[in-house]
């Protein structure tokens, strides 16, 4: 013991049952406490599978062929007791609708559900639910039926229901893919809030422009293998990004077209930096 990594994955290889291909092959990386890490890759690259592996749902729920280790605070995720695991790591999925239990008729009760399961004392439940609903700006909606909420609010509800368990790690698998820009902004604001609280975050996200503003590093997957694990600008400057047609932030694409790199030799990924670089390129005729 005594390792300081929050998450450590060692040579993880996994295949779903009935599948001859590996969904994940020989994945290894570490994430430190409080880091915010993104995951990018084509469809089928293994991003969702990796999210499930972090929470232990792969292999617990899906079975299949599994080798290697996923360690949370040094403990194998398959060994951690269920009750402990649930308060250690949380997962938010893509589809807001399928994350409601369906068994509760108000937003308040829906959020309290997880705490009821864990036998948390009633007063503490009330405290925690109120805190999380207010933090996510859902307190006004606490008496409404979850099914009456909009997509963005539902996704916030899903996040609230997980946050109320006070996990140290939060994994989000394309949380904004079914939301409009307003909903997307709200989700990213919450992510920013959690970052400032020191929660370790792993985020699969296709909206690269937003992703790069929040993450410290990015994992780049292709067909189950990890191509790279590095800072955003280094990742998006890799030739494999174009080769595998993964896409990039649009201003990065612009800079690539205009061959405008930053002082470190990479294409800028952040909006402000790209503006600066392009302005220079425009004003200075010889480079």
């Amino acid at each position: 013991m005594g390792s300081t990594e929050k998450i450590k994955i060692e040579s993880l290889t996994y295949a779903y049952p009935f599948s001859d291909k590996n969904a994940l092959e020989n994945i290894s990386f570490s994430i430190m406490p409080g880091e915010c890490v993104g995951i990018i890759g084509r469809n089928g690259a293994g991003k969702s599978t990796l999210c499930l592996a972090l929470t232990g749902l792969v292999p617990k729920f899906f079975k299949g062929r599994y080798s290697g280790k996923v360690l949370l605070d040094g403990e194998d995720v398959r060994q951690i007791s269920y009750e402990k695991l649930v308060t250690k790591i949380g997962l938010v999925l893509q589809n807001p609708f399928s994350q409601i239990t369906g068994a509760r008729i108000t937003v308040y009760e829906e959020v309290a559900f997880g705490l009821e399961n864990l036998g948390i004392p009633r007063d503490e439940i009330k405290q925690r639910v109120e805190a999380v609903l207010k933090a996510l700006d859902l307190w006004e909606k606490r008496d409404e039926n979850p099914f009456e909420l909009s997509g963005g609010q539902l996704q916030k509800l899903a996040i609230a229901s997980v946050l109320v368990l006070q996990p140290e790690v939060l994994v989000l698998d394309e949380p904004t893919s079914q939301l409009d820009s307003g909903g997307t902004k709200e989700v990213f604001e919450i992510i920013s809030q959690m970052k400032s609280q020191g929660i370790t975050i792993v985020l699969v996200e296709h909206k690269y422009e937003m992703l790069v503003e929040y993450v410290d590093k990015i994992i780049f997957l292709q067909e189950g293998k990890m191509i790279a694990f590095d800072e955003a600008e280094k990742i998006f400057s890799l030739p494999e990004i174009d080769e595998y047609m993964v896409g990039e932030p649009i201003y990065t694409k612009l800079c690539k077209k205009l061959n405008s790199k930053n002082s470190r030799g990479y294409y800028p990924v952040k909006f402000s930096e790209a503006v600066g670089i392009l302005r220079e390129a425009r004003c200075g005729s010889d480079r």
Partner: protein
Amino acid sequence: MRVLGLYVERDTPVHKLAPFTKLMYAVTSTVVTFLFPSITVGILFLVLSVFLNTIARVLKHLIALLMVVSVLSISIFLIQGMFYVGNYTPLFSLLRLTFYKEGLLRAVVLVLRLFNMISAFGILMLTTRPSDLIDDLVRRGLSPNVGYVIASVLQIVPQMLSTATRIIDAQRSRGLEMNGSFHKRFKAFLALIGPLVLGSLLEARERALALEIRGFEARTKRTFLKDFSESKR
């Protein structure tokens, strides 16, 4: 319909009774009328149930429920009146059909029994929020898993029905023919139910994941958020 159920929001003493009490009344009333198939017993309970429904100011809704079995009730009178095994005393004739006293009396008992069952359960269903009923039962020992299944069915089914409507629209716009021969319409049925099943099973799998993440399988003793006496926190 957002949540399945017959609950009618009112503020009456019947509404405030414990759900379990009302359930016990419904069951007892039904069982007694079956054990003692006499007209007197039937009428007694029916009057009592109707009285309770009236106090609860849901009489109109009860009548609607009874209307559902009106055709069955009439046919019971017809069939028992004419063909009951113990028929002996003819009472009257209509269009060459003879109706007997014993059969008609039997029909009265049967229909009273039916009405009784509906009225007694009506009190339960019309004056109790489904979630409160489930809560009460779980508190008294019903497995929380069973409670979960019942509670979620009540919300998931309306959800699936609105999805069903959307699927009809989507398939129609792709040229699905909903009229024509039985064969054609049956094929249309397959084209509608297939996507619905696939979609809802995929969603079910995701929901199972979400539940696991939120401690659904925890073996600790669960907390009950709501107090018996509260209907709103």
